[in-house]
């Protein structure tokens, strides 16, 4: 029984896990959990993850949630190139430092535009303009802090080579970019960093991973997205209510 990854590539952390596994040639069976179709609230998925969230890893009988835990597990188990999650004490500490900072400063903020521009309207909910504006401001302030803190020494977030930190960050930033926010304009350092990460990953892999999120707005415009059923809609409303 091989490795299974339960993912929806609409989700930023899922993309990070997907890209990592693909780039490192880790063999896995992809199980798509379509969030818009409510597959994460099915009885079957609940057995796997009572929290109804993706990504999830299943390795034999071992089930693991939380993208950073999954990335670290895969790094160790498949003995990937050291740079992803360096063994060096200080280099590794810098990766964890980024992951901690990321949770407070990036996660939860850069995902909001998908809600305001696509998911809210999909269920007939318009998010107030002041919240949209507040989120835009929060994103730009976060990017400023990101550049100040992590773009000093080194060509990547925590040093001179790509780590899991860069993946987690890039995939969060891709979310609003896919929704038409030009986060990179006027930010040459950030732009150069993104180019380096994408060059390292390769255009094909980036296209595979980003295809779903990059086409979501167009699909919404063509009414091609499934309308979530009531149980999913009420969960979506709870998420929308948490937008500051």
């Amino acid at each position, binding site marked *: 029984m091989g490795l299974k990854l339960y993912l929806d590539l609409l989700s930023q952390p899922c993309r990070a896990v997907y890209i990592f596994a693909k780039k490192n040639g880790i063999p896995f069976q992809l199980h798509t959990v379509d969030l818009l179709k409510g597959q994460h609230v099915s009885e079957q998925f609940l057995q796997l993850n*009572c*929290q109804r969230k993706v990504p999830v890893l299943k390795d034999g009988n*071992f089930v*693991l*949630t*939380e*993208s*950073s*835990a999954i990335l*670290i*597990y895969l790094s*160790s*188990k498949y003995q990937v190139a050291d740079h992803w999650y360096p063994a060096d*004490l*200080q280099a*590794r*500490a*810098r990766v*964890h*430092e980024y*992951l*901690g*900072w990321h*949770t*407070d400063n990036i*996660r*939860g903020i850069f995902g909001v535009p998908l809600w305001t521009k696509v998911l809210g309207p999909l269920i007939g909910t318009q998010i107030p303009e002041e919240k949209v504006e507040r989120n835009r401001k929060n994103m730009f302030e976060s990017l400023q*802090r990101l550049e*100040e*803190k992590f773009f000093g020494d080194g060509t990547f977030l925590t040093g001179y080579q790509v780590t899991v930190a860069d993946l987690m960050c890039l995939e969060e930033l891709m979310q609003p970019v896919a929704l038409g926010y030009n986060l990179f304009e006027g930010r040459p350092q950030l732009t150069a960093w993104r180019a380096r990460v994408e060059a390292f990953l390769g255009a094909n892999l980036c296209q595979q991973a980003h295809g779903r999120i990059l086409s979501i707005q167009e699909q919404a415009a063509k009414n091609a997205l499934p309308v979530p059923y009531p149980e999913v809609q009420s969960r979506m409303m709870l998420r929308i209510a948490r937008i500051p």
Partner: protein
Amino acid sequence: MVLELYLDLLSQPCRAIYIFAKKNGIPFQMHTVDLRKGEHLSDAFAQVNPVKKVPAMKDNDFTLSESVAILLYLTHKYKVPDHWYPQDLQARARVDEYLAWQHTTLRRSCLRALWHKVMFPVFLGEQVPSETLAATLAELDVNLRVLEDKFLQDKAFLVGPHISLADLVAITEVMHVVAAPSLKGIPSWLPGTIELRQWWERSSSVRPMRSS
């Protein structure tokens, strides 16, 4: 030069680091950064952590922020007993899973519960609307249930038979609500089953209980 830790024991992550270092006999110089006096906003502290937050660590020229990063750095550098962060791949992954989960869930709920139940009304003289308090406590309830049903289950500690970083981080969060001055022990309004209370007792007995 000895390791330096910049902490305010009012802060949950600071407590986890303090307890971990003390319990493992890691020599360090304590620098108290008094949050209530705004010492974290000083230029001097900004030299240590430009983000102006505690905890922060300085090991000769190497400065580090973020509590999980600091705990893991100490774990590896000082070669603490394996149970804190097991070598076993799956056991370790469970600790990583908990540490990732708690950051936006239990941590947030405990902080909000303390502020809405105690800090605002008692220390700042500001009443919190009852719907806000109710929502905060409801969120805390949800997260404590996940702590019990997903992580603790019928185990002695969160990831297995022995205490780990997960328990240390969890207990310093939960004590944020129980140790407030107007509350004694685990108050009745704090949701939780017998299992949660027993885990609390076990964790407290393994490490020294320090009052800040």
